């Protein structure tokens, strides 16, 4: 896939370390920059997201972590003035190439949002929404099975199996967020992007969602945005620290938290940034 956009000169070399381990890089960002109009919000990012691992994007408010995660499924496309330089390769294919269909991309890269956003329809219909619009199943029986499977994967099945027809808005916050996870999983994506999925939840629900993330990485590649460092240390395989649009440091969680290479990272970890 030829990228026809101009690739600008890279800035000063950044601290980046490729994590070692038996996983492949599923997504590679190659000198990727993003702009809102003239404002450069992501600056020459180079990083790899490993398959079936949890990659964490971390950093203070305004560092660009949410923007970055949204570029991975092209959710920023609709924003006026948004443009990109560089490439994001999903299995070697640039997702910003003109011939790529952003709608299809979103079936490969799913997303869960910070505030749970279930649709005002039944629990069943919420999970079935994606499969229905993409016609993933051929019969009601298949759809029932897919809905059940997705709810089980999201650790919600036992709590809702007797009330699938009830409105999703009747669930608690933690349940709603797991429903949103089930809904995203029903489309069978390869990657699941989670933008601070637990920050609106109480501690009990938060730990449930964290346990869920660790289970999910067995089958899906997870990218997690969080400002909660303890959460990042608990569940993250690889951690990327961003500051004002720059990728300051990237590596295995243990390296980043215990032996940070950059003084900025160290300041952030110690809470003095």
């Amino acid at each position, binding site marked *: 896939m030829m990228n026809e956009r101009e690739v600008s000169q890279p800035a000063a070399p950044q601290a980046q370390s490729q994590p070692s381990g038996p996983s492949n890089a599923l997504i590679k960002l190659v000198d990727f920059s993003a702009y809102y109009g003239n404002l450069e919000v992501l600056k020459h990012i180079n990083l790899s997201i490993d398959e079936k691992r949890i990659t964490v994007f971390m950093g203070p408010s305004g560092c660009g972590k949410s923007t970055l995660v949204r570029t991975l*499924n092209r*959710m920023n496309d609709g924003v006026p003035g948004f443009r990109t330089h560089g490439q994001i390769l999903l299995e070697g294919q640039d997702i910003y190439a003109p011939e790529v269909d952003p*709608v*299809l*991309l*979103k*079936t490969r890269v*799913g*997303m869960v*949002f910070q*505030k749970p*956003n*279930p*649709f*005002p*329809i039944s629990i069943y219909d919420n999970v079935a*929404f*994606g499969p229905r*619009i*993409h016609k993933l199943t051929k019969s009601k029986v298949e759809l029932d099975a897919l809905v059940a499977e997705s709810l089980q994967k999201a650790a919600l099945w036992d709590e809702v199996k007797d009330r699938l027809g009830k*409105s999703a*808005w009747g669930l608690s916050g933690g349940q709603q967020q797991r429903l*949103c996870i089930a*809904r*995203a999983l029903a*489309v069978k994506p390869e990657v699941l992007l989670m933008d601070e999925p637990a920050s609106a939840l109480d501690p009990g629900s938060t730990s449930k969602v964290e346990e869920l993330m660790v289970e999910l990485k067995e089958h899906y590649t997870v990218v997690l945005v969080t400002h909660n460092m303890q959460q990042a240390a608990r569940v993250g395989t690889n951690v990327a620290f961003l500051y004002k649009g720059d990728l300051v440091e990237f590596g295995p969680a243990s390296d980043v938290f215990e032996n940070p290479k950059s003084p900025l990272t160290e300041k952030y970890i110690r809470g003095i940034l």
Partner: protein
Amino acid sequence: MSEDLVRAAATATPTWKHPGVVANHRLRKVRSLIVGGLCVACVVAILLPLGDMLYMFAYRGLQVISIARLMGSPISSTPGIGNAIVGTAILTALSGAIAIPLGILGGVYMAEFSSGGRFSEALRFAADVLAGVPSIVLGYVCFLAFVIYLNFGYSALAAGIALAIVMFPYVFRTTEIAIRRVPESIKEGAIALGSTKTTMINKLVLRFALPGIMTGVLLALGISLSETAPLLYTANFANYNPTSLFHSQLGYLTGVIYLFYTSNLPFDVQLSYLATFVLIMIVLVLNIVARIGLKRFSKI
């Protein structure tokens, strides 16, 4: 602080026992009662004439009501308003068929597809102005345009179009407002699942916005049922059923009310009362159906 001040502070009366505060509290209660009473009086002042009016039309209308009177026409052996009921139904159906789809599509466009620039501002302004134009003026314009220029003649179609123009801004604006009320988070959730914008609108947004849209539709239908002047200009009035959409006049309830009330024939006057009663009943049923429907949809 001096000891005197400290002593004074310790023995001072608490705020809630302070005579000034107590007096103010009593005054507040009295004021509250007076204003409350005035509000109730205003409501009664409005409801009394309404009740009286409903009673009068029910009484006079029910005096002459019968199946025969509800069918037939003023010139049949048992004079009735059947043709007027049919005419009103035809006009409502025609105008609804034009204004409702156009209004909803227009509202969807404004809320979801327009870029918010000067064109959409102008469009919105034009719709608001249209809503403020007196319906008699719209009727006259349609008379010139459709009855004369396009040679429809006095016809159901010309009247239907005139009514549709009256109705359109209401459906248009309420649809846009109802759709804008759908939370962005819901739409984002759908897009993130790989939904196209049209699917998102058809399967989620319209469903969520339906109560608001229905309110606009019912408002518009209520308005179309109550129009007289534009219909007189475009459909004239007839005592028989129309034979075609063009060059064929028809009767309608508001026409009966207007034209027959001043008639010399006493029976015509009674038909006028009957038509009023029937029209009130139709509007009442419409509103009841609407409320039931909205309640069911709002159970989401």
